[in-house]
């Protein structure tokens, strides 16, 4: 669904803190499409989903498959067209995001198979945290292991950051994408920016 | 080396020269055996002797006397519970507390400094007010306080509306307060021992002797001991004992943590509880802040819990009491509390004849010590539930007549 920008407001209004020239940059990436997909990986439905998306969904929780560059670290960089990233959140649960029309791609599968595709583009906002100190900032609140060998690029995880539930995706070098529930986004912004002060 | 600003710690009086026989060995048989030399077990023995003249009693303890929850709790005493059944037993207990030091002849530092329970949201105010009115019809003393009145009684409370969960009111029970736990346990122990009760430590129960559905004694690490009647008063270990006796109890054993600060000058002379942000605190006579946290969520017999529970509690404490920011956490510890599905105790008969149970006090055991001992003694002596204990029978889980004190136990106390 295309966003009617004249009527839309993102949870953080596209806020930005720090910079690419600093130890850390934190910014909201507004209006990022997102879908919760539920499908049994052992079912024909799964094969149909993979075929429709043209992307092999990982079946190991915490892995990301993508044909898309999803962070916009440098100003003006645009995500690839018709890209999809699939974050494996549970054994039968993926978070799909990207520029492709995911809903349209999966509409035929939904009719023929038992899957659940739910538009959660408004449910979550997307916060990008980038820079040499990004990991330090996150580790003030994130209890999971962020060492690269345990949380490499294209690993994702759900957990609590400053008590707010979110999805974290190690997107590329020194760059993490956070997908918190929208209602927590203001709280999270306060927490992240406060923890960043020491590094700026 | 005079210095005007230096304050000195308050010293407590000495314990008596003699308390109980060290290394007491069990006799072959007793009229009554109480399993567990915690506060409730010792109080049961005391009231068996004092109220019912039954002195051929042994209290057997697997570790050292009062080494379980009795020595690990935050010593809050109050009776402002919601349900009539609870008001009945806890207020009976509070009345006993009010004469206990004199009766037992032991200093216990029982201090009726009042217990305040804060409300932090509209719905919190509603449920606390219900509690307040319930206390009123049950003739349990209770006062409703505005935030300003809270501040008058406890000036260190932050009643600003700008904090995350502002204080919107409070119930206050003036008769509530604290006592010093070891002194209470030792007072009961000494008084019971003086009346002829044997206190046998380092004696763990390993089984029961049950013949034709009737208990005849216990097997212990110090040998078999015969008894006409046996009372299980073993707090967190009740499930284990009930298992040995062959019946189920709807109890789960959970860690309950508490902490103390170093000694500080007196800044708080009442007890403050806040279920919504999980704080309860008092300042003991010598000046340490005594605080409790909620129970950890899982079953455990390890007498330790998670540190995040402590951290959460201290964060909440700093919000409510900014003066605590610089106070020092000195010691944390955990007890094992047994919790029933309705957060109320289980007292009375068991499927085994002459075997009695007193358990499930969860986070509320200390304040109930005298009342619990009183009704347990009566139940054992008479072979039938005491009137105040009757609603707490094991069969309430079959009928569905629960006494749901989760509201009261929302924060441990």
């Amino acid at each position, binding site marked *: 669904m295309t966003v009617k920008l004249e*009527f*839309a*407001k993102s*949870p953080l209004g596209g806020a930005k803190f720090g910079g690419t020239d600093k130890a850390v940059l934190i910014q909201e990436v507004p209006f990022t499409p997102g879908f919760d997909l539920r499908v049994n990986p052992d079912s024909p439905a799964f094969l149909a989903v993979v075929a429709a998306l043209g992307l092999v969904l990982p079946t190991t929780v915490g892995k990301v498959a993508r044909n898309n560059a999803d962070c916009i670290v440098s100003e003006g960089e645009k995500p690839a067209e018709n890209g999809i990233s699939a974050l494996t959140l549970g054994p039968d649960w993926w978070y799909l995001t990207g520029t492709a029309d995911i809903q349209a791609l999966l509409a035929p599968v939904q009719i023929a198979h*038992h*899957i659940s595709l*739910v*538009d*959660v*583009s*408004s*449910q979550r906002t997307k916060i990008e945290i980038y820079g040499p100190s990004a990991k330090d900032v996150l*580790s*003030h609140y994130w209890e999971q*292991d962020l*060492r690269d060998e345990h949380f490499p690029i294209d690993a994702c995880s759900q957990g609590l950051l*400053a*008590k707010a539930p979110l999805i974290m995706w190690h997107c590329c070098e020194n760059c993490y994408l956070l997908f918190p529930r*929208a*209602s927590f986004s*203001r*709280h999270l912004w*306060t*927490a992240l920016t406060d923890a960043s002060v020491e590094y700026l | 080396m005079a210095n005007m600003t230096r*304050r*000195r*710690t308050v*010293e407590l009086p000495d314990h008596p*020269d*003699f*308390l109980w026989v060290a290394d007491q060995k069990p006799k072959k048989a007793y009229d009554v055996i109480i399993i567990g030399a915690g506060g409730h077990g010792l109080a049961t023995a005391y009231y068996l002797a004092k109220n019912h003249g039954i002195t051929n009693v042994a209290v057997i303890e697997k570790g*050292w006397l009062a080494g379980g929850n009795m020595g690990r709790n935050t010593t809050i005493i109050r009776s402002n519970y919601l349900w009539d059944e609870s008001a009945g037993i806890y207020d009976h207990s509070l009345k006993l507390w009010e004469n206990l030091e004199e009766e037992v002849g032991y200093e216990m530092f029982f201090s009726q400094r009042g217990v305040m329970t804060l409300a932090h*949201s*509209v*719905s919190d105010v*509603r449920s606390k*007010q*219900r509690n307040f*009115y*319930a206390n*009123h*019809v*049950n*003739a349990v003393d209770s006062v409703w306080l505005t935030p300003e009145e809270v501040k008058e009684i406890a000036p260190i409370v932050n009643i600003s509306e700008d904090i995350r969960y502002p204080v919107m009111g409070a119930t206050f029970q003036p008769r509530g307060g604290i006592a010093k736990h070891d002194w209470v346990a030792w007072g009961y122990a000494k008084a019971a021992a003086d009346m002829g009760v044997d206190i046998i430590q380092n004696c763990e129960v390993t089984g029961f002797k049950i013949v034709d559905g009737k208990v005849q004694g216990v097997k212990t690490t110090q040998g078999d001991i015969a008894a006409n009647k046996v009372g299980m008063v073993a707090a967190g270990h009740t499930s284990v004992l009930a298992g040995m006796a062959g019946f189920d109890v709807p109890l789960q054993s959970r860690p309950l943590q508490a902490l103390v*600060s170093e*000694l500080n000058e007196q800044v708080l002379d009442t007890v403050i509880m806040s279920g919504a942000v999980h704080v309860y605190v008092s300042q003991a006579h010598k*000046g340490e802040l005594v605080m409790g946290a909620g129970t950890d969520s899982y079953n455990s017999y390890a007498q330790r819990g998670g540190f995040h529970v402590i*951290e959460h509690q201290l*964060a909440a404490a*700093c919000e409510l009491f900014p*003066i605590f*920011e*610089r106070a020092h*956490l*000195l*010691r944390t510890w955990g007890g094992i509390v047994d919790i029933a599905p309705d957060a109320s105790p289980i007292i009375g008969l068991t499927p085994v004849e002459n075997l009695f149970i007193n358990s499930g006090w969860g986070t509320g055991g200390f304040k109930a010590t005298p009342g619990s001992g009183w009704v347990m003694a009566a139940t054992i002596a008479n072979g039938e539930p005491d009137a105040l204990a009757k609603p707490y029978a094991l069969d309430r889980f079959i009928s*569905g*007549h629960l006494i*749901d004190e989760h*509201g009261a136990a929302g924060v441990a106390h």
Partner: protein
Amino acid sequence: MSTVNFTFDGKQYSGEKGESLASALLRNGVVYFTDSSYKDRPRGVMGLWVEETNALVNVDSGAGEPLKPATTIELVEGLVVRSAQGVGDLPDTRDNSRYDKANRHVDVLVVGAGTSGLEAAKKFSDQGKSVIVMDDKPAAGGHLTYLGQPVPAELLAVLDRANVTYLPRTTVQGMYDQGYSVATERRTDHLDSNVHTEMSRIRTWHVRADHTVLATGAFQRHLVFANNDRPGIMLSHAAATYVSNGANPFNTAVVVTVDNQGYRDAIRLHKAGVKVAAVVDIRKKVSKATKKSSRKAIEALGIRLIKGATVVDTSANLVGILSSVTIGQAKSDLRETITADLLAISGGWTPVVHLATFIGIKPTWSEKRAAFVVKHHSQFVSTTGMLAGDFGDDDEPAVFFGPKLTAEQGLVAFVDYQRDATYRDFKRAIDAGMRSIEHVKRYTAIGTAHDQGKTSGTVTMGLIGQAIGKAPDEIGSLTFRPPYISIPFAALAGRDRGLLSDPERTTPIHSWHVASGAPMEDVGQWKRPWYFPKSGETMHAAVLRECAAVREGVGVMDASTLGKIDIQGKDAGQFLDMIYTNMFSTLKVGMSRYGLMCGIDGMVFDDGVTTRISENHWLMTTTTGGAAKVLDWLEEWLQTEWPHLEVYCTSVTEQISTVAIVGPKSRELMKRLAPSLDVSNESFAFMENKHADVAGVPARVARISFSGELAYEINVPAIYGLHIWESVMSQGADLNITPYGTETMHVLRAEKGFVIVGQETDGTQTPDDLDMNWIVSKKKDDFIGKRSFSRADTAREGRHQLVGILADDGSYVIPEGAYIVAGADANTPPPVKHIGYITSSYDSAALGRSFALALVANGLARKGEKIAIPMADRVVTGVITDSVFVDKENTRRDG
């Protein structure tokens, strides 16, 4: 080293930057430090580090902190401290320092940067493991500093390796399960006050290590003899270290020892210029090696050795500072007094077993080491160095805790300095029947002060053993508990202070509510507008106005916080039939139905409206507070009981923003907002859903009413929530659109007798109790909770049931929570039998009077009965009524 100025007890001194306050005071000749907690005995510095028992101060400069050992404070310019007497001052000012936390996962955590710790770090680093070394002191070296020896450079170099992180000033405070440790790092107190203001003062580390090496070293012990507490009496390694660093107020020393450390320290004292009058060794005979290494060495320096003797008493000068030491032979009554202003005690080592015991590892007694040691190796933890009993081969301690004391001596022979607990106190405990070390501790208060028995614990255990003739391992050591050393509360709060203390959840319309000046109600973590006062308006007036506007015109409410769960799959209807008490599988597509959920105990636990979006697609709403709980509940049944059901649940609480427009004029407003939508009753029925463009964005409009009025709920993706709200406000301006908050919502629903779970319920109500028998399906074989309805108590007559209550005085709003008695009991003083309580109570614009809902025993059969409500200052009388007060016939919902 630079010189800095500091203030102690109001007097100015100078010292070397970075040295400990204790050292600086000794350097300035301050030996008499403070008075003891209870007995006003003069006391001086005793130890070197956190084991310090006497020299506590309240720090007034910087962030300020009560009760810190002077031995652990690093000197900085402008430090201001006051000596303390065992009790801390809590300043009544906010501590505005930053505190933070950090999480760290690592292969190996090494606790202690002494030789053993560094060796362990090297070993694991060599294996390619990531290592973090935490040490509580400002510099590495550990025990070597006690020996006055330099740390080997090749070991120190380990700390610079790429796979090794070294954190000095970092105290591991607690060890927990599965390799989890908590540490605190002191980051700024040692820095000049004007730098790094954005740095946290103390950082709490949460470390997860695959393996933890405990290399925690050992404390030195004192001995228990008469007057063993005077200023000038110190642990020998402390005295030797201070003096060697030039902090030397002493002239003549006596060293009393049970091991070879006393000899090493005698030599250091001697070399630093203190005259060592004698080394007094309780050991008559020692090994050849000791003879050679220790005894020969002091004799070579001309130091007198007294064998088989110990200190039995001391004297003081007029101020209270040590002036002489009385030596007694162990096996004779010979006494000798030696003039000395320093008595250095080496009473043996006590390994720092704390962290190991926190996770349940029991120390074992080593007769050879005269100490409790922990030799342990498991998946998560291993021990090394002095903790593991590696004292070096030449230490040879005697198991000795002090000489035999007369009753009189026992009064001034201190076991625990901070608690002023004496040998007499200890002896009384034994005589009173105390045998467990825990009982002795509680009887005497030994081990309960600031140091938590770091030096006194083993001494106490030894004394108990001597007193009752048991071996130390039969007594056991004190139980230690985290934290290892005390920590300011604020440091453990970290950033969870102020608004960050708990997340605030906000809706997309929140900024509008805030701008309008609406006070917020905390509903769980959510911030919801409570009411929207006009300038100068009271809450009561605002709510009456809002209620009237809704009943007569149109109001608008932000209902975005309601929990929402998307449910998909062909078995969803069947699933909902099990979850709700009423039937859902028969619901038509496009329609909504209200449902109640019960727990397996049959008690109501949540409610809400569920909509059938399409054949296999449903949308459930839950209470605001119940959203997470309900989703967990659904998943639990699906995953653990009915995995064969084809149903998927997805939370969409924040996906959808819900704006409710409510009141007779809502149809007109809806028409304006969605011109394409036919809003007539005929084509848009009650409980029906329609998809339409609303104010330019795609929406699902539902005709659901929680007030009894004609109402529409506009559901849009949350990014449009604010737009819809603003559109409603502008399009409804001439209809006098009135925003209302949670309070008005509560009044409106109560007027209709609609319950709120958590207000009319407390976890003990069945649907029947809520007078909602109509919602309990009689057709379904089973649903969750059904079986519990037939239990004796649940099925009995006379349960509390939902009714209305009207006070006789309609201008009086009965307090919520008030208890109700029968009218006949109006004047019975408490305790009085009650028949129920008020769940909701409001003033009503529609009724022009107050009204209430209540749960009353057998209430449905008692309508019309008189009741009374006893309160502290009055008795209110009233009557039991039906629970529906407004529009009993449901005529208003269709407008």
